[in-house]
């Protein structure tokens, strides 16, 4: 008998009597200002949050961006140069400084932003760059993860990640260090 058979048989015999899936826990949603709530949460988790009025305004910010060139993933402001990274090896992406990606769902309760595979260009991009920038539309904000998962078609893409803040660690004597193995900083643009 294969291990598969052995395990499934053992589980079938051992499992408790059937119980039903519960009803979703009901809670009162008093969301007044999603943009305000989301921005405040993003700032509280170690990231920058800038609210801009319209994609044109974001384009202006992008064009005037201080520092090294930013690879662009936001179709609304121009060519998606992140696609040049698509089939590249990790070593070729190592020197990437800043990347601007298009988030698709923003969660106000925890500041997390959903980036599906198709928005990364290369799955390594959101992690290997030093500075990560994410743009999200105010219309794409939801109060909690529950609403977020209702919006996402999980089977549509091969990968997706919720990104909440810059990479971090508190593994050394519980001292919070911003910037672990992923980006050292995150800036979020909420486009109204």
């Amino acid at each position: 008998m294969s291990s598969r058979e052995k395990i499934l048989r053992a589980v079938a015999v051992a499992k408790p009597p059937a119980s039903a899936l519960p009803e979703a826990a009901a809670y009162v949603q008093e969301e007044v200002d999603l943009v305000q709530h989301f921005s405040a949460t993003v700032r509280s988790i170690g990231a920058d949050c800038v609210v801009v009025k319209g994609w044109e305004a974001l384009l202006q910010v992008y064009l005037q961006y201080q520092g090294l060139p930013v690879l662009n993933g936001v179709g609304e402001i121009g060519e998606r140069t992140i696609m040049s990274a698509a089939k590249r090896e990790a070593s070729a992406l190592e020197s990437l400084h800043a990347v601007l990606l298009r988030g698709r769902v923003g969660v106000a309760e925890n500041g997390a932003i959903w980036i599906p595979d198709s928005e990364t260009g290369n799955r390594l991009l959101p992690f290997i760059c030093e500075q990560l920038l994410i743009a999200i539309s105010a219309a794409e904000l939801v109060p909690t993860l529950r609403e977020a998962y209702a919006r996402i078609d999980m089977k549509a893409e091969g990968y997706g990640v919720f990104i909440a803040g810059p990479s971090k660690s508190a593994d050394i004597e519980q001292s919070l260090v911003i910037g672990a193995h992923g980006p050292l900083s995150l800036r979020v643009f909420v486009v109204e």
Partner: protein
Amino acid sequence: MAEKSHAKAAALFNEDEQRVDWHNETLWMVRSKRDRMARQLPEWEALRSEASAIKEHTLSHLDEYLVAFEQNALRNGVQVHWASDAREHNEIVLGILRKHGARRIVKSKSMLTEECGLNTFLHDHGLSTVDTDLGEFIVQLREELPSHIVLPAIHLKREDVSHTFEKHLHTEPGNSDPTYLAREARAHLRKRFMEAEVAITGVNFAVAENGGMVVCTNEGNADMGVHAARVHIASMGIEKVIPRAADLGVFLRLLARSATGQPITTYSSHFLRPREGQEMHVILVDNGRSRQLAKPAFRNSLKCIRCGACFNTCPVYRFSGGHSYHSAVAGPIGSILAPNFDMKKNADLPFASSLCGSCSNVCPVKINIHEQLWHWRQVLMQEGQGSLGKKLSMKVMGVVLASPFLYKWSGALARTVLRYAPGVVKSKKLNPWYQSREMPVAPRQSFQEWYRKKKHNEQ
């Protein structure tokens, strides 16, 4: 004797009182952060109940969900393996590594691989993995086990880390600034990520309806490994499967808040299909879980989502440290899982508790940990795993309490000894109770004597 292992280790740990106080305060701070987060959600208790019920349902259909997960994963181009025990899991990993001739391996945090002793096994076969979670990286360099499932290096001070990095990474001697040390680790591990051929990860949640796996990190080390390497191996216990992606909207709201007091970890990565040119494997591991599932008193322990909240609140853990538990998973949850793996070796663990119940209070999936600790004690005593001293003293107590005469007599004896020969009981050698407690002042008379006298006076 297994009975003494935790107690002995804890006694050693407590020799450095200042350090123990620091350890306790550090962990209580993490508990406090969890409390603050939980109180911000009015629906917190409802979420706990919902999560517990989802797990309950899943366990009652576990075989079906495992098959569904497998089918969907296969459809996604993921290779699915089944391992009955730790040895088989390790052999499967070795097989994949050998097939690719891989020598450069990175691993993100996986308690399952700790449980299976994967690192040691691979080392015995001439292969080494680099643990990329900063905390695990530190303990790996120190050749220690993690002392906490979420905060592996919580038992170390920054000076300890500085010494370790000085020795292995040649960092500035005496520089124990956490940011400096973390940046040095970043640079060193960045090289390992870039050259890695295989990335091994754990699985926080495996979603049956789409064959996908979720991995949560703050550091981004799981993704740095997986997206750069040609091969991704994900190791998971069979109890990690959940029915639907929507259920993540419950579990991910509870996990980080319970674990570290964050609303969510920085990265919640959902792996469904391998990227082009990449090979993705998942290993479903039993290793005693089906045996635990068969026990009505203990099966709820399989609901565990490995948040570590029970560790942070447990007074025994806070004052004895993770290494006192001699197990991959320490703390209260470890104490109800470990005796199932090896009853003899881990017989001491369910006794390493005051049964205060705080663990059950903070558990996001409402595992009745403190009740299971008590239950294990019954099982262990019946199986003859209790210490002779405990067995005898319980028998004697049973006899004394069952006899009114013996009860009265022993009470009188105790009061007499306490008053006239206190040295007998006030001895740290003869009386273990006295090692960290004061003896009570002996009352002049027992309640019965007082009652009789009072009644006599009133007549």
